[in-house]
């Protein structure tokens, strides 16, 4: 999976450079998020701008990251959801669990 990471010393931005976040590639995102929180990062934004399709495995990888963050008093925020991705969050009611922002800048500022 193509993930681009930017760390400005305060916030780590994880850009998912894939059209699909599904059972084929979501394990890598799950592991990357786990690695970041284990390394002591406390503010992580996952940018989903390029993702137009997400399945239950993709949602599961983000939930795993969210739980990992919560257990360490760290934060995980999401940004730039396309409409079809947003509708999957709403269907599974996960939009009430995650902090979701329209842009990366808004997500970073919210920390």
């Amino acid at each position: 999976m193509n993930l681009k990471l930017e760390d400005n010393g305060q916030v780590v931005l994880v850009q998912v450079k894939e059209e699909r976040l599904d059972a084929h590639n979501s394990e890598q995102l799950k592991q990357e998020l786990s690695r970041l929180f284990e390394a002591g990062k406390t503010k992580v934004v996952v940018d989903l701008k390029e993702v137009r399709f997400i399945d239950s495995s993709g949602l599961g990888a983000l939930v795993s990251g969210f739980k990992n963050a919560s257990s360490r008093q760290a934060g995980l925020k999401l940004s730039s959801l396309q409409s079809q991705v947003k509708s999957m969050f709403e269907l599974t009611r996960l939009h009430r669990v995650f902090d979701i922002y329209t842009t990366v800048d808004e997500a970073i500022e919210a920390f």
Partner: protein
Amino acid sequence: MKKTQIELQIKVPNQTRYLSLIGRISEELAKQLQNYTGDREALANHINVVLTEALVNAIRHANANDPDEEVEIRITVTDEELVLQVFDHGRGFNLESISSTAEDAQHELEDHGRGLYIMRSLMDSVVYYPVEGGNVLEMRKQFR
């Protein structure tokens, strides 16, 4: 009588790398459904999602991740409904043992268990039953 307009049959190896291919084919098909009066773009995404979920169940659970196995997908369009079938050759799994409500999935914040809930929410019916040589997960959506 239900008239069959389109019947597609696809076999792919039991590997998740083929999810994207099946997803794209099903989205293109959904956009061609003349008898569906709702939002075809949304339907295309829904079909992509439910087929992905069904395929992952077949690949990982029923066929136990065996890369030499295969899964078969059959998509049938009649003038009244769309039928999606995913055939596996494995020992199957218990559909009812998978958590299928949003409350279950959210309260527990489980990493897994949302697949069946998504399939049941987006389709009119979801059943799983044994056939010769394996099992089939069958989903139906009425056009109405």
